[in-house]
């Protein structure tokens, strides 16, 4: 294992860790975004709330999510260490430093952007993830008419609690058969949360940070693994810029704005 | 008869057998003894780096000194065009003999046959060694090495790496050197300048060096000392040499008894960027390879030249019939590829006659338009299947090819002059580039001081009165890789019983004191003029009187002027700072002090040589057409000067014997 420790303690080894964890977080972002798009469905949050259940109950996803948490921590710790280490490589700073002439702003401020994102993550997780898991989120029941597909939304009483994340059964009524699903109404939390302008602002700023962070980070990870080839650089760049620096942050930012406007 | 003090030690036997035989019979030092033999190498250019790494590989203890901050920065790095080797890869009739012959002829029959033949013999090994050590030479699509032609030859034997051949070769030698440094076989002393040779009982035993960062003087013992310190072109102030290139190491050796040979043989390179003003600190070479495709011309009419100088006429508007392609006119066989001395003098002749361009009147054109369009443009058009290309197409296609071949040189020209050479002809003028003269050495590369060697440009041996293009790199690496490792055995095999001498020996103490005294004297003058002021004045005296053309009256006057300047220097120079600190002014002062002595000897040498040969052109000795007139009867010798005291030199002559070449008048017509 000596070789592994040597690799991990080398400057290149640290970069590999950053790149590997970073790319993993990128793939998570894609999944997270697709899930969150359910917020835009006008179904009183049914799809979104079901997605939330899936994310927290599926054993495979759960396993992956622990990996994700570990990677976030690793990415952050390693990143912070690198920032300080790199700072120490230039004990005396330049009086004039014209970085914009030779590099993008994003590439020079990954540490700052990352820190912003870390702060955001804490707020974001405590708002939704913590609340969802350990806090008090009201329940909602969705009754779907099996024949017509029509959904009835029935908020649960404020003090309602259930053991399982999701409880499902089928009942027959005069109108026909209904599938009754009761889940935590995270959708409501989202909807209510984004009435606060400061939170909306925080999310928009954070998404801007995501944009800049990934503008550099995505293609940088490929370079770190040595994947720099004139045949493929174009497509990597394209995905990095249009996918990760523009489309994904825009989609995420659209959510708080949507709820804020439609309150 | 050669002077008895000059034993050239050329082995017996036929020319072809000399080196092979000698190599196999030269005494060896057994590996165990090598470890206790210490060798000092001064200078880390091609000769120094290759010698140091090779000697370390053999097992000797080696110390290397260079004044730059790293061995990789030695001025060999700036060589552009290429390196010659008798590989005959082009199947165009090249051979060891032909390279030997071209070099002797190019040197105007003033070089030693045996040395030059050996050089030609090992030339092929250099290419092999360099390629093996990772030098990325230019290659053809088939994966084999590419060659180009250079001045003074009619075969293609020049290997190259774009316009950075010297850089690539030096980095190859440097990486070998650093490998030995990493293994502890070589101790590297960068930012150190050698300031004295230490002699004990007539034998060289070490050096005094100054640590340029701390200013501390250091004593270093060596069983042998190798001076690989390059040439002395900076005596002219303006030259293509690096700012730090100097004669100091060689000159200190000279003052300790080593003879200085042919000091007046300096090479003026024909294709340099002209001087732009008084601020000029150095001149930049444009590789000779440009003469492969560039045509040199000046206007035929005096009034056109005048109008150009005044900025009223654009050279592109001068009609073909009004252009004087004077090299093609005078030397139809070699045309623009005549040797450097011939091309330089021809340029000077035209400019002196009033046809020079540039505001100063000291420049000629090097024009690529013709070959760009009608040579490369046509070839490319044919490749593209365009039967009747337009002028614009020809230009466009040719532009690409020229860019591929010379792009970095064209960029450099534009960077320095602000003029785009793709659109306008380049302006060039000759400038001091190389010095064929140097410390006298025997066949073993040892000076007349036992244990003291000189390699590469620092010695005099291989280029006679004029060096052919792409031969300097060849000689530096030949000396370092393939000559000294063998020949040093002849001396060191007798040294195995010599124990390392303590540097507390009185000779070391005294040498260090004399260096300290000189330094303190320089700092103590506290005069009113800077070191550069004196250097520039010396340069002007040398350029005007001992440059491209020399004459008796001028040389005599120059000697007087140099003596006067030297005494003024020693009473009025201002060297700022202290001795015990990083002090570039002090470094310069020491070097200029030595140039002020060397300049006199150069003039003296030029004065005694009543003939014109190679880079040495005495106006009194020329044919009616203005070609150099050599005098083989009286001057077929190496002039080796022994310094008795400053201002008093004794001339020793080493007769040159040509057994394998028929001496002829050098003709490139």
């Amino acid at each position, binding site marked *: 294992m000596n*070789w592994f420790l040597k*690799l991990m303690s*080398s400057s290149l080894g640290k*970069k*590999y860790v950053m790149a590997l964890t970073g790319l993993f977080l990128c793939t998570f972002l894609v999944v997270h975004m697709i899930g969150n798009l359910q917020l835009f469905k006008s179904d009183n949050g049914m799809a979104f709330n079901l997605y939330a259940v899936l994310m927290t109950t599926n054993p495979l996803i759960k396993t992956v999510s622990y990996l994700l948490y570990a990677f976030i921590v690793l990415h952050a710790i390693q990143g912070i260490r690198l920032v300080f280490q*790199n700072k*120490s*490589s*230039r004990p005396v700073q*330049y009086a004039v*430093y014209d970085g914009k*002439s*030779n*590099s*993008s702003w994003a590439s020079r401020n990954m540490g700052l952007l990352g820190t912003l994102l870390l702060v955001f993550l804490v707020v974001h997780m405590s708002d939704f993830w913590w609340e969802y898991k350990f806090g008090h989120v009201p329940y909602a029941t969705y009754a779907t008419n099996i024949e017509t597909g029509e959904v009835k939304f029935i908020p649960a009483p404020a003090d309602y609690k259930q053991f399982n994340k999701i409880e499902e059964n089928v009942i027959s009524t005069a109108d026909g058969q209904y599938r009754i699903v009761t889940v935590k109404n995270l959708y409501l939390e989202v909807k209510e949360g984004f009435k606060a302008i400061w939170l909306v602002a925080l999310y928009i700023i954070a998404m801007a940070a995501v944009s800049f962070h990934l503008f*550099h980070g995505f293609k*940088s990870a490929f*370079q*770190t693994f*040595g994947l720099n080839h004139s045949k493929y650089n174009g497509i990597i760049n394209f995905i990095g810029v249009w996918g990760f620096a523009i489309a994904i942050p825009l989609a995420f930012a659209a959510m708080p704005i949507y709820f804020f406007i439609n309150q | 008869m050669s002077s008895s003090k000059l034993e050239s030690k050329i082995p017996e036997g036929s020319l072809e057998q000399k080196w092979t035989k000698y190599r196999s019979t030269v005494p060896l030092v057994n590996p165990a003894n090598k470890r206790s033999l210490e060798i000092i190498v001064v200078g880390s250019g091609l000769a120094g780096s290759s010698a140091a790494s090779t000697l370390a*590989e053999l097992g000797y203890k080696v110390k290397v000194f260079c004044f*730059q*901050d*790293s061995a*990789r*920065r030695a*001025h060999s*790095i700036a060589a552009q065009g290429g390196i010659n080797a008798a*590989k005959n890869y082009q199947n165009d009739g090249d051979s060891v003999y032909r390279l030997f012959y071209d070099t002797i002829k190019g040197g105007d029959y003033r070089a030693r046959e045996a040395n030059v033949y050996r050089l030609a013999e090992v030339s092929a*090994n250099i*290419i*092999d060694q360099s390629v*093996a*050590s*990772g030098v*990325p030479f230019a*290659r053809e*699509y*088939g*994966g084999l090495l590419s060659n180009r032609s250079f001045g003074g030859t009619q075969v293609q034997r020049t290997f190259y790496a*774009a316009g*950075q051949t010297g*850089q690539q070769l030096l980095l190859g030698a440097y*990486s*070998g050197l*650093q490998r030995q440094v*990493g293994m502890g076989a070589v101790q590297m002393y960068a930012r150190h300048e050698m300031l004295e040779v230490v002699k004990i009982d007539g034998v060289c035993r070490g050096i005094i060096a100054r640590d340029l960062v701390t200013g501390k003087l250091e004593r270093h013992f060596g069983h042998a000392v190798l001076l690989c310190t390059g040439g002395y072109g900076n005596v002219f102030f303006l030259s293509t040499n*690096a700012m*730090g290139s100097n004669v100091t190491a060689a000159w200190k050796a000279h003052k300790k008894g080593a003879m200085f040979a042919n000091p007046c043989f300096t090479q003026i390179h024909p294709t340099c960027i002209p001087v*732009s*003003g008084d*601020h000029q600190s150095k001149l930049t*070479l444009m590789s000779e390879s440009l003469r492969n495709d560039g045509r040199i011309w000046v206007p035929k009419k005096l009034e056109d030249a005048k109008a150009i100088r005044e900025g009223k006429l654009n050279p592109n508007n001068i009609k073909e019939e009004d252009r004087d392609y004077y090299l093609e006119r005078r030397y139809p066989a070699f045309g623009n590829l005549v040797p450097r001395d011939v091309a330089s003098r021809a340029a000077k002749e035209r400019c002196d006659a009033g046809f020079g361009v540039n505001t100063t009147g000291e420049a000629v054109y090097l024009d690529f338009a013709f070959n760009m369009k009608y040579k490369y443009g046509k070839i490319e058009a044919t490749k593209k299947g365009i039967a009747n290309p337009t002028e614009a197409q020809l230009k466009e296609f040719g532009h690409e090819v020229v860019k591929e071949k010379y792009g970095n040189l064209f960029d*450099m020209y534009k*960077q*320095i002059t602000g003029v785009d050479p793709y659109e306008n002809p380049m302006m060039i003028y000759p400038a001091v580039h190389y010095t064929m003269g140097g410390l006298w050495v025997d066949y073993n590369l040892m000076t007349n001081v036992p244990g003291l060697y000189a390699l590469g440009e620092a010695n005099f041996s291989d280029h006679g009165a004029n060096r052919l293009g792409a031969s300097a790199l060849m000689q530096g690496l030949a000396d370092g890789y*393939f000559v000294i490792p063998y020949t040093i055995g002849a001396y060191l095999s007798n040294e195995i019983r010599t124990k390392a001498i303590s540097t507390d020996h009185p000779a070391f103490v005294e040498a260090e004191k004399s260096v300290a005294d000189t330094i303190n004297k320089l700092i103590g003058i506290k005069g009113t003029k*800077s070191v*550069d002021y004196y250097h520039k004045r010396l340069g002007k005296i040398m350029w005007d009187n001992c440059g491209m053309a020399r004459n008796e009256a001028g040389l005599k006057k120059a000697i007087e002027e140099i003596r006067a300047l030297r005494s003024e220097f020693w009473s009025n120079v201002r060297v700022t700072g202290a001795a015990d600190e990083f002090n570039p*002014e002090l470094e310069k002062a020491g070097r200029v002090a030595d140039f002020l002595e060397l300049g006199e000897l150069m003039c003296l040498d030029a004065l005694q040589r009543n003939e014109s040969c190679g880079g040495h052109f005495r106006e009194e000795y020329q044919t009616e057409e203005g070609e150099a007139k050599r005098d083989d009867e009286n001057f077929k010798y190496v002039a080796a000067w022994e310094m008795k005291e400053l201002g008093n030199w004794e001339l020793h002559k080493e007769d040159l014997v040509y057994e394998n070449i028929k001496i002829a008048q050098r003709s490139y017509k």
Partner: protein
Amino acid sequence: MSEKLLNLTLKVWRQRNSKDKGGFETYAMKGVSTDMSFLEMFDVLNEQLINEGKDPVAFDHDCREGICGMCSMFINGRPHGPKQAVTTCQLHMRSFNDGDTITVEPWRAKPFPVIKDLVVDRSSFDRIISAGGFISVNTGNAQDANAIPISKEDADESFAAAACIGCGACVAACKNASAMLFVSAKVSQLALLPQGQPEREQRVLNMVAQMDSEGFGSCTNTGACSAECPKEISLSNIARMNRDYFGASIAGK
């Protein structure tokens, strides 16, 4: 060569020696010719200072034709000044305007300690080369140079990497003071050649280890190094080194 004259203000870092704290001095320069190189302007400044009995500015320089890699000025926030693909010695004053204030600093990096004024110690680069930037071939062992054909593309790419002049502008430009471009250029040059294969894995491991121990920062792929490199060494060399190092670490012997 249409010459113009400029009046400039120079702010130059002055530091007596490695222990001195150092600081900026301001100098007014009058009538600077646009045909001068940046270093020639410093020659003029030094001539002025000497005439005034002051200590001239120490700066590294040698060949003054852009190849030795000795010159090393950080000019207005950029190594070798505002132009791309040139060294300080080839930067000409026509790149500046009348009335400009120009700030000149030494390269700044922990492994490049200041010796005096604008002169820094770059011996760390030599030590990196000593760690593995070579092919172990003793003189005399070589086979015929044409025995191993090398494709023109590989030879050209190797040459492009080998064009590095070791000036340290990459380190100076990098916000992390990383030496990745320098190291990767040598690793690449030799990795692209058949001669370099036997030591390929060990070379990259050793050179990176030496680079790390010298105290250079790590690479964050900003690309500043390549953008400021006077020889335009490509970032693809860094990618190649990343690849080689990964492979050598994981699968190497």
